[in-house]
C-alpha cells in the first residue's frame, strides 16, 4: 500500500472561533491507483491534500506514506518528502516566473537530485512544450502553464502525485487535454494520483472516488 490515512483531524482558528475542517478521515491508495476527492467548497478536500503532501500537519491521526508516518516528521524531513516522493500540482500553477520553461520543468527533479534528461524530454514532448522551452511563464497561456506545472511535478518520478483542482483555471477543452496527458503520464510513471476536483466528469475518469462532506467521508 502506497498511502494509508487514518482518523485525521484538523481544526483551524477563525475569527468566529475554532473550525473543524477534517473530523476523522480514513482513506487508502495503492501504487498506480487514481482517486478523486470531491465535495463542496469548505468540505476539507484541499486541507486533506495539504496534509498528505506534508504542507501542513494534522491535529490527530496518521498519514502513512510508504510505511512512514509523515505526521510525525519535522519541517526538514517533510521538505525532503515533497522533493522526491510526493509531487503537488497546484491550481495556480505556481511556476517560477524568473526561470525559463526548460528550467521550470527540470526544477523539481534537480531539487530532488533525480534529474533524468531522457524522461524530461519525453515529458516535454508529450506535453507539447518543446517549442516553448526558452520562453518565460508569463509568455504562455494558462493551459500551457499548467502543462509545465504537471511536467515539473512528474519530472522526479514521484510515487504519489497530488493535484489540487489542476484544471480549475482552464477552459473545458484545454482542461480535458491536460487531464488526458496527466493520467497517461502518471500511469506510465506507475505513481498513485490523488486529485481534488469539483468536476464530476474528471472524477469519473479516476479509478475511485471519495466524497467529503463537512470534514467527513460521505
Amino acid at each position, binding site marked *: 500500500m502506497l498511502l494509508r490515512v487514518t482518523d485525521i483531524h484538523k481544526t483551524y482558528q477563525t475569527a468566529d472561533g475554532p473550525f473543524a475542517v477534517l473530523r476523522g478521515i480514513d482513506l487508502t491508495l495503492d501504487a498506480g491507483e487514481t482517486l478523486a476527492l470531491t465535495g463542496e467548497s469548505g468540505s476539507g478536500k484541499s486541507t486533506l491534500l495539504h496534509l498528505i503532501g506534508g504542507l501542513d500537519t494534522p491535529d490527530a491521526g496518521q498519514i502513512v506514506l510508504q510505511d512512514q508516518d509523515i505526521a510525525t516528521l519535522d*519541517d526538514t524531513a517533510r521538505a525532503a*518528502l*515533497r522533493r*522526491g516522493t510526493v509531487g503537488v500540482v*497546484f491550481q*495556480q500553477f505556481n511556476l*517560477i516566473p524568473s*526561470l525559463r520553461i526548460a528550467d521550470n520543468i527540470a526544477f523539481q527533479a534537480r531539487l*530532488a537530485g533525480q534529474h533524468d534528461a531522457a524522461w524530461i524530454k519525453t515529458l516535454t514532448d508529450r506535453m507539447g512544450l518543446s517549442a516553448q522551452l526558452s520562453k518565460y511563464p508569463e509568455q504562455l*497561456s494558462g493551459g500551457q502553464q499548467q502543462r509545465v506545472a504537471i511536467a515539473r511535478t512528474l519530472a522526479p518520478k514521484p510515487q504519489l502525485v497530488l493535484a489540487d483542482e489542476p484544471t480549475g483555471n482552464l477552459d473545458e477543452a484545454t482542461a480535458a487535454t491536460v487531464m488526458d496527458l496527466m493520467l497517461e503520464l502518471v500511469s506510465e510513471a506507475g505513481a498513485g494520483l490523488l486529485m481534488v476536483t469539483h468536476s464530476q466528469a474528471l472524477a469519473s475518469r479516476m479509478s475511485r472516488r471519495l466524497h467529503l462532506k463537512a470534514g467527513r467521508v460521505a
Partner: protein
Amino acid sequence: MTKATLQALLSHWWRNPLQLFTLLAGLALATALWSGVQAVNAEARASYDAAAATLGEGQYDRLVRRDGQPMAQDTYITLRRAGWLVSPVVQGRLNGVRIVGVEPLTAPGGIGPVAPQEGADVARFLSGEGQLFGSSETASRLPELAFVITPEAAPGTAVTDIGVAQRLLDRQGQIDTLIVLPGQPMGQPPLADIAPDLARQPAQGGSDIARLTDSFHLNLTAFGLLSFAVGIFIVNGAIGLAFEQRRPVVRTLRALGVPLRSLVVLMVAELMFFALMAGGVGVALGYVIAALLLPDVAATLQGLYGADVSGTLQLRPVWWLSALAIALGGTAIAASGALYQLAQMPLLAAAQPRALAMAAGRRARFQGIVAFALLCVAGILMITAKGLIGGFALLATLLIGAALALPLVLDRLLAGLSRLARSVTAQWFWADTRQQLPGLSLALMALLLAMAANIGVSTMVSSFRLTFTDFLDQRLASELYVQVEDTTQLAALVDFASPRTDAILPIQSAEVTIAGQTTQVFGPRDHATYRDNWVFLETAAAAWDTTFADETILINEQLARRSGLSIGDVVQVQGRDFPIAGVYGDYGNPIGQAVIGEDIFARLFPDVIPQRFGLRMDPAAVPGFVEELENRAGIPATQSVDQARIKAISLAIFERTFTVTTALNVLTLAVAGFAILMSLLTLATMRVPQLAPAWAMGMTRRQIGRLELMRAMMLAILTAIVALPLGLALAWALLAVVNVAAFGWKLPMYLFPLDYARLGLFALLAAALAALWPARRLARTPPADLLKVFSNER
C-alpha cells in the same frame, strides 16, 4: 538542491536588472559616502599621529617656559647637570615646512626617524651640513637641503639635529621644549629650584591637534553617517520590494521541498555576496570622493588648527576592510525585517502578491508610535541636551522621528487635499497618490533627510559666515599689522610709525592655564579700537575701564562655557586674582582667550616683548606707508600685512572649511534624487494593473503619464514643505547645541528664505527629472499590456 534553489533565487535579479542595479547602486553609494569620509578622517588622524610621534607628544612629559617663550640652551645644560634626563627640541617653519630639531643622542627612541636603535647614521646626521628626514613631498619644498626620504614621516615636517635646526631657523641657542625621559634618577633637585620659570606638562595620552580636531572629524563622521543612512533607505526599499515580489516564489520553493532554513541561509548568502560586490564598488568610489575632498580638508585643518595633513591618500587596509564591514552591516540592517517576515511566513498563506499598501497599512500604526516617541525625546533633548553626545542624540531622534512620521504626515495632507477635489479625475488622482505613498515612502524619507540636512547645514554655514564676517570687521580694526623680529626693528617701527599713524597697538600674548583651560592671555593698549569694536555677549558696567585699569579681566566665550565662568567670577593669572568683567564672542578660535590691561600684562609677563603691532591710520595711506617702512626703517614689506589681506585670507580659509560640507550636501541630495528615480522606475512596472482600469474608462496613456509626473513633483513639494521646519530645527540644534559642545561658542541663527526657495526648486527639478523616464514609460505602455490586466488567464 542548493544549486537549483540558488538558480531560482538569482534568476529574479536577472529578470529584474533595474531592481538589482538599485540595490547595488544604493549600497555602493552609501558605502562610498561613508567610507570616503572615513578615509579622510583616517588620513588626517594618521598625519596627527605621525606629527605627534615626531615630537613625542602624548608619550612623555615636557618642560616649557611658563610664558610660552623659548628657553635658553643654558637651561638645558643646567638641568642635565642637576641630573634631569631631558632632551631638547626646537621647531619652526621654513618655506612652509615644519622643521623639528632633536638631539639624537638623548632623544627617546620612537620620536622622530633618527632613534639610534633604528640604525640611522647618527654621525652623518650630526656632521657637516646635516641631514633632514622627511617625506619626498617635504623634501621637494626644500630642494637645497640634503634629505633622507622616510615615507612614514609626518606630512610637511622635517626632522633634523637640533644644531642644524637652530641654524636653519636662525634660532641659535634657543630651545622650545625639553622632553622628560622616562626613568628619571632618584634624588633630583626639584624643578622649581633649578629652573623656576619652567613648567612641567604631563603626557596627555594623545596629541593636542588630535583633540582639537576631534569635533571637526565628528561633524564629518555625522555627515557621513547621514549620507549612509540615506543610502540604506534605498537599499531597504530595494530589498523590501524584491522580497515582496519573490514571496510567491519562496512559497513555491518551499512547497516543492526546499527547507525554510536552507532558503533563509541562501538568501542571506545572496545578499552578503551583493553587499561585498557593492561594497567593493563603494570602496573604490569612496576612495575617489576622499581623494577629491582631502585637499580641502587638509587646507581647512591647516587653516583652523594649524594641523598638517597629508594631501595624498593612502589605501589603508583598516579603512577598506571597515568599509566592506559597514556595507555588510548596512545590508543586514536593511534586510533583517524582510528576512524575518520571510522566515515567519506560513507556507499555506494566500499565494497572491501582497499589496505594498496593505503591508504598510499594518505597519503604519507601529511606525506612528515610534515616530511620536522619537519626536518627544527630541523635544526633551532640545531643552536638556548638553555636550556632543546629547547634541548628536538630538539630531538622531529628530531626523529619524521626522523620517518615520513623513508617510503619515503626507497621507494626512493628501487626505485633506482629496477632500478639495471636484472633478472625477482629481478624485482618482488623489486616491491613487495615497495608494502609491507606501511604495514611495522610503525614497521620500531619503529626500526629506537630504533636504533637511541641506537646509540645516546651509543655515548653519550661512549664519556662521555672516557672524564671522562681522566678527572680522570688529577684530581686524587696525588698518595695518606689522611683525618685528627683534628689538632693533621694534625701535625702528616705533620711531617711524609714531608721527605717521593715529595709534600703535602692540599685540602681545602669553599662554597660561585659567580654570584648567589652556588660555592665550593678551595685554592690549587702552584704545578706542577695542572699546568701539569688540562685542560682548555678557558684560559688567565699565568693563573696558576696569580692565585697562588693571582691575578686571575679559574672557572669550569658549573659556566661559568650558569652565562655567561668568561675570563676577574671579580667575587667577600668574597668581593674581582678576574678577571677570566681560565675556566676548571669539569665533573660529579653538582655545580659551583672555584680555588684561597692558600694564599688568607687562608686570606679570616681563619677558614677553611684543612682536606684532596693529597700526591705525588712513586706509588710503597704507600702501605708501609700507613702502616707506621698508625703505626708511628697514622693515621688509613681507613683515607687513594690511587689514584687507588678512580678511581675505581668513575668509578664504573659512570658505574652504565648508567646501567639504557643501560637497557632501550635494552628494546626499543627489543620492536622494537617485532614490526617487529608482523607486519610481520600480513602481512603474507594478503600476500597469492599477492604471489599466483608468485607461479602460477613457483616460489616454498620455494623460496618465502626465499625471504620474505631476504626482512625483507634488510629493516632492509636500516633502519640501515638511523638510523646511525640520531643517530649521536641525540648524538650531547644530548652532545651539552641537557647535557649543564642539567648538565652545554659540552662533546666532539667521534665516535665508531665498536659499530655501532655491533648494525647494532643486528638489522639484530632481523629482521631475526622476519621474520623467518612468512617466514616459507608462505613457508608452502598449495597449496589449494594459489589456492583459483584464485577461482571465492572469
